[in-house]
């Protein structure tokens, strides 16, 4: 956090909002500041989005700036590429990350490579917002975490906030970025941080200290991790919902963990990762997505390549299982406190 933004946060520390409101504010500010910003997607206009992230924006900014689209992810992302080539900054919403696949060709082959293939004659400065992740009984079509598909693509940036403060600052930075950005919103923590103990009540963001969000404009540069907790015993690398679960587990176990919220997977804050692992000598990676070829595999490889001689135990991954997301057995699938706790025990024992 820069001195300026920290000061801004402290000034308005009393104002606590949830992640949905923070995202709404970021969009509102950018629509106000930049006439090139366009918000579009299924149900985002009059109704304000199924999660209410765009509530009130059409009324305030007009229906040519904020509008509903046909149910066509390929169309939504395809027209956004054309809008970006024109000179606008579209912010398309894909209602659930699980539905992004029909738009993949436009993202992977077009948006991500347009700058490269045209030698920067044309760019696609778009921010594709999409709620992702499980923990809301959404079944296999409303719970997936497909972030690693996008981190594998040259030319795309992948951003995942874990607090309202970050969601607002990162979304503003993403919209201002001249590269295409995938902005995954962990919907499990839209309304409050989630400890992973599904049978405990969720504390709303309005009462949570990490939800102090300044009014007005501020940005969090892409590519900078957030230090969630300072510790010496082991490093925990996480993002999105899993930041809160890992934090809660470490706290309950009384482990002195150095917890990093990666915030952006591409570009990755490799310096923060290296510094932390070299300090603790132990590394646990936690993500909700399926295990095989997940982003944890990339992180594990990076840590091994760069910190091998500092490691005192094998790098561990806690992830979702390699199955489709089950509806009724959601809490058996979800990487929760038991799985994380076991991994911590294993690492610390080594």
């Amino acid at each position, binding site marked *: 956090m820069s001195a300026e933004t920290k000061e801004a946060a402290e000034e308005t520390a009393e104002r606590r909002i949830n992640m949905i409101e923070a995202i709404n504010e970021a969009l509102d500010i950018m629509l106000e500041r930049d006439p090139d910003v*366009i918000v579009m997607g299924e149900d985002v206009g009059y109704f304000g989005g199924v999660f209410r992230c765009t509530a009130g924006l059409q009324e305030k900014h007009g229906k*040519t*700036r904020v509008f509903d*689209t*046909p149910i*066509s992810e*390929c*169309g939504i992302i*395809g*027209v*956004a*590429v*054309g*809008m970006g*080539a*024109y*000179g*606008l900054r*579209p912010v398309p919403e894909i209602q659930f990350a699980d539905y992004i696949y*029909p738009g993949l*060709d*436009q993202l992977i*082959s*077009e948006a991500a490579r*347009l*700058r*490269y*293939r*045209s*030698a*920067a*004659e*044309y*760019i696609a400065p778009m921010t594709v917002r999409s709620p992702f992740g499980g923990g809301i009984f959404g079944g296999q079509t409303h719970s997936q975490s497909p972030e690693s598909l996008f981190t594998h693509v*040259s*030319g795309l*940036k992948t951003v995942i906030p874990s607090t309202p403060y970050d969601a607002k600052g990162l979304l503003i930075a993403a919209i201002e*970025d*001249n*590269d295409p950005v995938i902005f995954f919103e962990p919907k499990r923590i839209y309304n409050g941080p989630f400890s992973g103990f599904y049978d405990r009540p969720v504390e709303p963001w309005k009462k949570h200290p990490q939800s102090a969000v300044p009014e007005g404009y501020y940005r969090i540069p892409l*590519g900078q991790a957030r230090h969630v907790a300072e510790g010496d015993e082991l490093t925990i690398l996480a993002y999105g919902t899993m930041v809160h679960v890992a934090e809660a587990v470490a706290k309950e176990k009384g482990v002195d963990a150095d917890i990093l919220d990666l915030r952006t997977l*591409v*570009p*990755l804050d*490799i310096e923060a990762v290296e510094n932390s692992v070299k300090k603790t000598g132990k590394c646990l990676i936690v993500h909700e997505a399926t295990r095989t070829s997940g982003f944890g595999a990339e992180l594990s490889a990076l840590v091994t390549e760069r910190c091998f001689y500092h490691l005192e135990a094998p790098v561990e991954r806690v992830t979702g299982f390699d199955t489709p997301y089950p509806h009724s057995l959601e809490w058996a699938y979800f990487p929760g406190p038991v799985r994380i706790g076991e991994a911590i025990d294993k690492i610390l024992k080594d």
Partner: protein
Amino acid sequence: MAEPADKPPRGGDNRPALALHVPEPKSRPGDPVDFSDLDIGEPGKQPRPDEGAHPSEMTDLAYGLVRVLGEDNKAHGPWDPKLDPDTLRTMLRHMAMTRAFDERMFRGQRQGKTSFYMKCTGEEATSIATSMALASDDMVFPSYRQQGVLIARGYPLIEMINQIYSNKGDKLKGRQLPIMYSSREHSFFSISGNLATQTPQAVGWAMASAIRGDSRIAATWVGEGSTAEGDFHSACTFATVYNAPVILNVINNQWAISSFSGFAGAERTTFAARALGYGLAGLRVDGNDALACYASQLWAANRARANKGPTLIEYFTYRAEGHSTSDDPSGYRSAQEREEWPLGDPVKRLKDHLIEIGEWDEERHAAMDRECAEEVKETTKEAEKNGILGHGLHQPFRTMFEDVFEELPWHLKEQAEQATRERIKKFGEKGPNR
């Protein structure tokens, strides 16, 4: 469990066995060709509705064929754009130049100067006449066979050849396949190899123009085979929903590599008729008739400019050559098709028209062909001074890592350093193109 392959087909009892229809073109290599069932209509007989007409008032135009030039080489009917002779001669010259360019580049590929080339022989009118009907700053989202658009827009031939040769003059830094041009200055969008992706992008650009209250419109070109892609249908939906100022040009050249148009659904209806289900204006046009191509594009452009809505135009034409230098059409279609194509050759038809109206003659035409060939030849020589594909490394190494992102992130910096180390190992400190 899957049934064993040798088991007889199901059906039986009193129920008839179902049968799958797999389309088959009417002729294959060695077969005689019969185009007699093709209803090409009489030139000049098709009505020209008002540019603001509702799509439902012009459904017949989606099934017929808008034609202007007759067998008598005269222009007929309400679609005659009544172009002045200078404009017609310019159009003819662009078409002749495109053909000369294709010939030279095709040969260049055969001589190993580049990896790949695609001719547009027989389809020149669908790019040149159409782009001449647009304003020069209207944005075009072409497919891979619209080199004529660049030629009509005055894009320097040498830039095209530099791109085809991926040499040090290539503005795209040797990253794109030959013929996948891009020119922002000429409002020509970067060509993608993935099919039909440009169609929703054109609609998005047109939507952006409308959002801004701009006056420029967008046009896109897609092959009839690619209309089967989901992107095309997304484009139609978005175009109609937002009344986007866009023209969706479908070039029905009968063949998608070796698959005839039947595999995109041509046996059942026309490609122009796809417009009807979306509520788009739909026109089906003789794609080898430069005047009909010009007139229909101008009609659609005027319609878009007046906020009356998008238009889908099918240009009915014929791909006289192979799909690309990697293709051999003698392996899948009758050689007679090209000879007997009932709509003739677009260059010859325009030439004959100009001669008929007393504005051209065979001698001038032959001289023009020679001039075009000479200009392409000289330009090719100039371009070759910048290098040809495969002979040397024309782009500095660092360019490989530029433009992935606006700024170079750490992982690409590391990979760029690795590439430099490898270069020094291979070529020494004074190696090529540091």
